C-alpha cells in the first residue's frame, strides 16, 4: 500500500497556471509548431500570464483592476486580495477564458468562451461589444436558467475588477485569433513568420480589437419610449399577432405554444464552429480511407500522409480542447425565466438587436419600435397566459402554478 503513496507522490506538484493556446483555431489554420510557439510568445509579450497580467496602453485595460482579479487564490483569511477570477470563475470559464474549466463539461448550457469576444446579453447593437455596465450587470444578476450564479454579494470593486478581467481575456482571445488567421494572409516571402513589429502587433492587430471595446459605450441602443397611454390588453393582442405573423416570425422558432418547440436543432456560433470542423474531419478521414496511395506520385503520397496526420491531430485536439457540441433550443417563453434580464428594457434589446452568437435574429429595421414594444408586452404575459391549461408543462408545475 506504500506503493499507492509512491504512485501518487510520483506525480509531483502542478506547474503554475498558464494560458492555453487556442488549439482548435491553430490546428484549423494548420499552424506549424514554430508558428504556435511564435503566437504564444507574442501573446506572452502582449498580455503576460494568468499570475502576472500585462495591459498595453492600446488595450485600454486597467492593470490595477486586472491584478485584483488575476493570480492564484490567496487562502489566508486576511487576504483574498487577488485571485478573484480563479476563485469564482476559473473552474467553469477556465483560466484562459476558453470555457474549458474542470466543471464546464457538465453544465448546460456550457459556460461562455470569451475568446471570440462575442457576448449575448448587452445593451449595444448586435455587432458591438457589451459595455462595461452590461458585464457588471450580468455578474450582478447572474443568468437565470443557466449555471451562471449571481455575484451580487461581492463588493462593487470586486465585480468591477472581474468585469475588467473578462474584457482582458476576451481581447486576448480575439488577438490570438487574429494572429493565427494572419498566417494565412502572409505573403509567401514572409516564410510563415509574423512580423514582430509594433505596427503589425499593436497598430494592425490589437488596436482594432481594443477599439471596438472602447467604443462600446457609444454603441448603446437608443430605446424609444413605450408608446404613452398604451392599453396593455390591446398591446398584448397586437404583440400576439406579430408573434405569429410573418413579420416578426417568432413562432417559427419559439413555437406555436411559445414553449420553444419550433426550429430546435440549431447550434449557437461557438458550438456550430466545432460541429462544422467535426464534419470536415470526419468526411476527410472517410475520404482518406477510400483513396489508395498506390497510384500516387511521391509528393502526392507525402501530401496525402500529411493530410492524414493533420486530420488525426485535429481529431485529438477536438477531444481535448472542445466540448461535445450541444444544440441551442429556442427559449421556452412560458418559464418566466429571462436570461438577459426580465426588465421590459432587456426584452426590447433582445428583440431589437437579436442575440449575438445565437440564431435569434435582429428585428431592427424590419420591425418598427412600437411593434417591438407590443411583442415585449405579449412575451411578458406568456407565462401567465391560459393559467392551468398548460398544466402538462412541468416547469409551470414547478413554479407552483
Amino acid at each position, binding site marked *: 500500500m506504500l506503493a499507492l503513496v509512491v504512485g501518487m507522490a510520483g506525480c509531483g506538484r502542478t506547474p503554475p497556471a498558464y494560458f492555453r493556446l487556442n488549439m482548435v483555431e491553430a490546428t484549423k489554420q494548420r499552424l506549424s509548431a514554430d508558428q504556435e510557439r511564435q503566437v504564444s510568445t507574442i501573446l506572452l509579450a502582449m498580455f503576460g500570464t494568468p499570475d502576472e497580467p500585462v495591459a498595453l496602453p492600446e488595450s485600454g485595460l486597467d492593470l490595477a483592476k486586472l491584478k485584483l482579479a488575476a493570480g492564484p487564490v490567496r487562502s489566508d483569511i486576511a487576504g483574498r486580495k487577488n485571485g478573484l477570477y480563479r476563485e469564482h470563475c476559473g473552474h467553469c470559464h477556465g483560466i484562459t477564458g476558453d470555457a474549458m474549466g474542470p466543471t464546464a463539461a457538465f453544465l448546460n448550457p456550457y459556460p461562455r468562451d470569451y475568446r471570440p469576444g462575442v457576448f449575448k446579453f448587452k445593451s449595444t447593437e448586435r455587432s458591438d461589444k457589451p459595455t462595461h*455596465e452590461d458585464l457588471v450587470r450580468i455578474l450582478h444578476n447572474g443568468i437565470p436558467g443557466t449555471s451562471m450564479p449571481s455575484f451580487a454579494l461581492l463588493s462593487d470593486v470586486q465585480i468591477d475588477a472581474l468585469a475588467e478581467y473578462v474584457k482582458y481575456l476576451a481581447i486576448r482571445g480575439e488577438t490570438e485569433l487574429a494572429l493565427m488567421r494572419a498566417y494565412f494572409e502572409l505573403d509567401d516571402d514572409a516564410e510563415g513568420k509574423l512580423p514582430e513589429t509594433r505596427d503589425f502587433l499593436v497598430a494592425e492587430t490589437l488596436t482594432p480589437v481594443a477599439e471596438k471595446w472602447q467604443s462600446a459605450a457609444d454603441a448603446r441602443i437608443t430605446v424609444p419610449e413605450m408608446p404613452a397611454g398604451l392599453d396593455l390588453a390591446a398591446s398584448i393582442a397586437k404583440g400576439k399577432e406579430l408573434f405569429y405573423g410573418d413579420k416578426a416570425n417568432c413562432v417559427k422558432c419559439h413555437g406555436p405554444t411559445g414553449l420553444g418547440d419550433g426550429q430546435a436543432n440549431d447550434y449557437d456560433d461557438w458550438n456550430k464552429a466545432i460541429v462544422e470542423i467535426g464534419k470536415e474531419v470526419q468526411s476527410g478521414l472517410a475520404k482518406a480511407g477510400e483513396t489508395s496511395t498506390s497510384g500516387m506520385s511521391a509528393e502526392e503520397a507525402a501530401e496525402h500522409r500529411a493530410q492524414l496526420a493533420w486530420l488525426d491531430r485535429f481529431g485529438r485536439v477536438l477531444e481535448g480542447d472542445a466540448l461535445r457540441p450541444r444544440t441551442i433550443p429556442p427559449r421556452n417563453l412560458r418559464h418566466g425565466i429571462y436570461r438577459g434580464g426580465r426588465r*421590459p428594457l432587456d426584452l426590447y434589446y433582445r428583440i431589437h438587436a437579436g442575440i449575438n452568437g445565437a440564431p435569434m435574429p435582429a428585428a431592427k429595421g424590419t420591425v418598427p419600435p412600437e411593434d417591438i414594444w407590443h411583442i415585449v408586452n405579449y412575451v411578458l404575459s406568456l407565462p401567465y397566459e391560459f393559467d392551468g391549461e398548460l398544466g402538462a408543462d412541468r416547469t409551470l408545475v414547478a413554479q407552483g402554478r
Partner: protein
Amino acid sequence: MRNRLSGIFWGLLFLAVPVLGVATFAIAPAFDHWLPKDVSTHGAQIDALFYFILALTGVVFVATEVALFWFIWKYDAATTDRPATYIHGSHTLEVVWTIIPAATLLFLAIYQMNAWADVKMRRPDMSPTVEVVARQFEWRLRYPGRDGELGTQDDLHLTNDLHLPIDEDVLVQLKSMDVLHSFFLPNVRIKQDAVPGMKIPVWFKAREAGEFDIVCAELCGWGHYKMKGRVTFEPRARFEAWLERKYAEQQATQPPPDAGDSLAAN
C-alpha cells in the same frame, strides 16, 4: 509495564481530556468562536436549551472522565499492592445509574417540546411574505407584487438578496426547483430543507435590523459552497421603500441614467 511512572503518565494524559475539553469550550467565546448573534424572537429558547444541555453534559463529562482518570491513577498495577476486587457488579448501582439518566433524558425530551413546536408547528395564519425557490446554486426570491398574491405577472423577482421587515411575523414559502437544499439562517436559528415537490412554510420574527448570511446547509451539488444569500432585516417603512425601488427597476423601459450607480445602489 512494571514502570511506576507509566500509570501517572497515562493518568495525566486522560485527565487532560476533561481539563482541555472544558478549557476549549470556556475560551472559545472569547475568540468569538461561539454561537453567532441571534436576532430572532425564538432563538433565545434554542440557545437556552443549548446551554442547558451543555451544562448537563458538561457535568457528566467531567465526572466520568475524572473518575476514569482517578481509577487509572489509583489502580495502577505497578503502584498498588492490594489485589483486584473480585466483584461481578451491583444490582443497586445498575438500577441507580439507569433510573437517574432515564429521568433526566425524559425531562429533557418533554422540556424542549414547546420550543420545537414554536419553530416548526405553530404556523402563523398569514399569506407568504416571500417565496424562496432554491436552485443550483442560488436563492431565487419572489415577492407578491402590488396585488399581494404570488404567481401573478406583477410579482417581484430577485436573487440572493432577501429583505424582510422586523418586529413582525414573516412567512417564507420554501421550494426547490431541482435538488435538496437547506435554508439556513445562522443568526435567526432557522434551518429547513427545501424539498423539490414540497412547499414548506418557514416563519420567524426578527428583533433587530441588520444584514446576515443565508447559507445552504444541505449538499446540493458542486456549487453547494457558493449558494450564498443575504437577508436584510429593516423596519417596515424602509422595507416597503426598498420593494418599491426594486419593483420600479424591474419595470424599467429605459436604461438608468448611469447603470454603474444604480447597480451600486442595490
